[in-house]
């Protein structure tokens, strides 16, 4: 019996190392003597497990075995997922040099940064509180020498804050310290509603924050000698 043939018994008993086993499988193909012996002996070997007495299987075993296996399912699923991820990481590592990794990393960071900025800008727009126009009051000329003067006043509300917006066109020009002043009439008393200077085309715009609960019946616009008027001193140019 050759040395190779000596492996027959450990081969049947499944005791060969993997490389020895492979070598013996090759040997089996060519050695007629071993082949014949193997067929006979392995037949006896495979008969060995049937040397038992049949025993009644407990009813509860099925649930315990299959329950155990299927409970394991999720766990092994994540394990293989993790294994796949680490395989992927290794594969990627072998594809990139340190330089290309840093380039990719910088690009990725830039993309993420831009993405975040974009989203934030969108959110910012979304957070803008809508402005609601509560009242629109047409303004017309109050002075015969400038009958073309016209404009609109709006009361706008943004959250709880109310603003008066006054827009007037074709106003006569002002000189020196002269300004236009808006007056809010309520029960015969006039309150300051802000001052403005028109541009060279005679158009002027003013926004004035109204105090909480402040209301008025009428608007008047006068031309004042300076910005310090507490009560109207000059001519009324336009009004509601």
């Amino acid at each position, binding site marked *: 019996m050759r040395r190779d043939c000596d492996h027959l*018994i450990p081969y049947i008993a499944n005791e060969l190392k993997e490389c020895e086993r492979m070598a013996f499988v090759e040997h089996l193909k060519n050695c007629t003597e071993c082949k014949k012996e193997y067929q006979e002996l392995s037949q006896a070997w495979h*008969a060995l497990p*049937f040397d038992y007495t049949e*025993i009644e*299987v407990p009813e509860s*075993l*099925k649930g315990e075995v299959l329950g155990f*296996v299927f409970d*394991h399912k999720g766990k092994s699923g994540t394990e293989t997922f993790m294994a796949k991820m680490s395989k992927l990481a290794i594969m990627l590592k072998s594809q990139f040099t340190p330089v290309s990794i840093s380039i990719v990393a910088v690009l990725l960071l830039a993309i993420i940064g831009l993405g975040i900025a974009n989203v934030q800008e969108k959110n910012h727009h979304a957070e803008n509180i809508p402005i609601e126009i509560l009242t629109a009051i047409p303004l017309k000329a109050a002075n015969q020498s400038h009958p073309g003067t016209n404009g609109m006043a709006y009361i706008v509300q943004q959250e709880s804050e109310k603003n008066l917006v006054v827009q007037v066109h074709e106003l006569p020009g002002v000189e020196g310290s002269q300004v236009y002043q808006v007056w809010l009439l309520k029960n015969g008393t006039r309150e300051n509603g802000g001052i403005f200077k028109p541009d060279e085309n005679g158009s002027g715009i003013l926004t004035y924050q109204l105090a909480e609960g402040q209301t008025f019946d009428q608007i008047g616009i006068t031309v004042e000698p300076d910005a310090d008027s507490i009560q109207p001193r000059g001519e009324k140019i336009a009004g509601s």
Partner: protein
Amino acid sequence: MKEKYDTELMRLVNEKHGHALEELYNRYIKLIYSFVMKFCNGNEEKTKEIIQLVFLRLWTTNSHYDPSQGSFVNWLLTITRNICIDYLRKEKRKTQHHQEEHEEIADPANVIEQRVNTNDITKAKNKLPTAQRKLIDLLYWKGYSLSEIAKLEQEPLGTIKSRLHQALKGLRKHLELEDIK
């Protein structure tokens, strides 16, 4: 036809069809249970744990049954036996710290075997000389390796190998005679 069905079942198990695993359980649990009980000397708790591991192996690892390598039952029992051996070796390592290696080697006969058993292989085995029968019990049912047995029996490894050779030859001869009867 039955083999074909087993191959198909195993393919479905590989594709993670739970009902196919259940079908395998229904078909083979009696065989596997009796086999493992004998391996564990009738210890029900160990038997349960081993059977759980067997079905887990069938389910989780991609163990593919190749019909050209032998019958499905042989394949299944080989897997089962390997798991039994691994299990018992681990256990042996654990208990080795507490007690000496030589435990009950002298008489490997076990509880399960003492029950009435009339099948062919048992009859054939009983006709073998005591040394050969003991060798098969230690090797096949107790999971000792050939070299471990050589050490235990204080005999050369070559002697043990040729004894196994003789034992298997003898078994085959007796099995054939049983067939003729």
